């Protein structure tokens, strides 16, 4: 099954239709040859950061499956199986959570990740043990991808002492020091500064303590959603991360909905990836339902960070199959989409 590609234009159409007016054309895809990029370079002569800032609206691969396969000989069968297993684990785990919840064995606020597996797998499977992951309340699958044993996560959800946080954290506060999973946060945006601090510590270890890993800097990934991109902490941390060239990747899991609030109704400029260049870092948009595309972008963003070139903002357009949480009646969304990240990988 082909996962159709998303482009920035898809965001624009509904807005233009509703308002009935013209919008300025989107930033052109690809960078170096566009007139916009040339203008950036000209005008940015006295702003060295601007000169290198690019908005890359990418479908990293063309929509064509065959072309896609040909462009990625590097994904071996073993790697593909690893990715598949991770995505299936995430899906099955979350389905079991739903079952337990509706049977009255799991309580509180539980936010499931069904549909978004490609983002977690695509990014986290590229990390080392020493790299850090910071998530939100939708953190079960990030924990699993980072290597926290499923038994440990599930026990935590049951409030057991054998849970990864001794039952003290719960669904929204998954932590694991050995796996460098730095949380699990209930308030949106509040994990981003923590991730920025972890990235700062990585840079500090390298420059002040002279402790360097063999691969380069330890990288931190901060995962958060579309709603968070309207929050102050997001912008404050984009600024600081770029200012100090911290080894961090800001991963936006744009599933277009913040509980019942559509991203388009909440955001003046819904193209989140464009906000990266506003701070001097690359902004990349990618189809978050295709694990190979996500992995391709993730690889470059993580390598950039490791080399000390600073942060990247990656917007993964994705979709959650279930409501915001298991308590969400989910009456506003009308899923017309037919994208299945796991079966897409199968083919």
């Amino acid at each position, binding site marked *: 099954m082909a996962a159709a590609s998303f482009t920035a234009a898809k965001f624009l159409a509904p807005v233009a239709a509703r308002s009935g007016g013209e919008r300025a054309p989107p930033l052109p895809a690809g960078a170096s040859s566009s007139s916009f990029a040339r203008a950036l370079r000209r005008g940015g002569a006295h702003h060295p950061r601007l000169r290198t800032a690019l908005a890359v609206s990418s479908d990293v691969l063309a929509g064509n499956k065959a072309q896609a396969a040909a462009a990625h000989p590097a994904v071996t069968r073993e790697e593909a199986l690893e990715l598949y297993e991770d995505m299936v684990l995430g899906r099955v785990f979350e389905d079991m959570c739903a079952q337990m919840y509706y049977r009255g064995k799991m309580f509180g606020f539980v936010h499931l990740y069904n549909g978004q597996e490609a983002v977690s797998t695509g990014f986290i499977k590229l990390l080392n043990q020493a790299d850090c992951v910071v998530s939100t309340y939708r953190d079960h699958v990030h924990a699993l991808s980072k290597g926290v044993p499923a038994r440990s996560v599930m026990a935590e959800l049951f409030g057991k002492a054998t849970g990864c946080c*001794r039952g003290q954290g719960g669904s929204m506060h998954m932590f694991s020091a050995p796996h460098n999973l*730095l949380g699990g946060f209930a308030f949106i945006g509040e994990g*981003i500064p923590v*991730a*920025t601090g972890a990235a700062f510590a990585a840079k500090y270890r390298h420059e002040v303590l002279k402790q360097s890993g063999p691969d380069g800097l330890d990288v931190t990934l901060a995962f958060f959603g579309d709603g968070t991109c309207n929050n102050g902490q997001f912008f404050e941390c984009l600024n600081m991360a770029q200012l100090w060239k911290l080894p961090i990747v800001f991963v936006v899991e744009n599933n277009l909905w913040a509980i019942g609030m559509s991203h388009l109704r909440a955001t003046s400029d819904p193209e989140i990836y464009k906000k990266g260049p506003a701070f001097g870092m690359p902004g990349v948009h990618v189809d978050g339902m295709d694990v190979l595309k996500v992995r391709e972008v993730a690889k470059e963003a993580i390598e950039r960070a490791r080399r000390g070139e600073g942060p990247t903002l990656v917007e993964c357009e994705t979709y959650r199959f279930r409501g915001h949480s298991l308590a969400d009646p989910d009456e506003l969304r009308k899923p017309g989409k037919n994208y299945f990240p796991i079966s897409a990988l199968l083919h």
Partner: protein
Amino acid sequence: MATASSLRAAVPATAPCAGLRSTSAASSVRVAPAARGGRGRLVAKADAPSSATASKSDGHELLLFEALREALIEEMKLDPTVCVFGEDVGHYGGSYKVTKGLADMFGDLRVLDTPIAENSFTGMGVGAGMKGLRPVVEGMNMGFLLLAYNQISNNCGMLHYTSGGQFKIPLVIRGPGGVGRQLGAEHSQRLESYFQSIPGLQMVACSTPYNAKGLMKAAIRSENPVVLFEHVLLYNLKEKIPDEEYVLCLEEAEMVRPGEHVTILTYSRMRYHVMQAAKTLVNKGYDPEVIDIRSLKPFDLHTIGNSIKKTHRVLIVEECMRTGGIGASLRSAIIDNFWDYLDAPIMCLSSQDVPTPYASTLEDATVVQPAQIVAAVEQICQ
């Protein structure tokens, strides 16, 4: 550690820090009264090493902000993971010069000039703390840390617990607060009352160059998140402090003036209003015992309790607002633990529950003045 509202059973039988030795190079030196001068005497603790009671050299004189600075420099030299975040802490040297020269000594990464984003750089401190650093986060004015409340409450205070003990947050959050000289309502706030409920947070208030240095060092070495409250009007206090290294106990109160008639509990700037009132009281024939509680959370109920058992009368003098202030919590703790020893109701003098006015006469009227303290003692001791 015992909390402010701990029940009777939780009152420690021994002094705080009894049996503890400070870590690494510093030995916990209890300074002899002679070196401190004046009326201030430290109560000798059972565990104080006898060889340390007299300091060998004369000590050196400095101002309170210099004492804080000295503490920072010593700790940053001892431990390369100690770093400073804040606005204007680096090149500018700090708004109150606490970090003057540190950026030249330790570099721009260890003394980090942050943009104006309190919530985010405090959160950065939390994340860095989780990954092995020991940040000292400066709020240019304590009031600005209201913007960091999300991070201080949710992350700083809670992550050690919600992670099931996996992560420590050895953060120090410090800055000047309190009512200054006509700084206006927003620059005159007392955040100790707002922060005291945050579970997992420890709070201390310094009031002299001696305790400022000792508490700063202790806060940096602590594995817990500690908020160190400084006061805008106390930065230029001068005192002679020991040349030898010393670290104070975070949970310990300070006996400022032993006495028999009434226990006066205070902290930060109000200590000086109390001591001024004490002069008048002594002339009138009273003998107040003055304790600078220093540790705002947890309270040093050992020292406080010993005093109440002796005097049977308590007056609390604080600068924070009456409603929900430190005094309110302290009163509760005393009632819970020492009710049977009281001969009079506990009196509490606090600032008025109003935004601090700009005009100096109005400002003075919102804060407790020595005359009110004298009147309160006379009333209590009737």
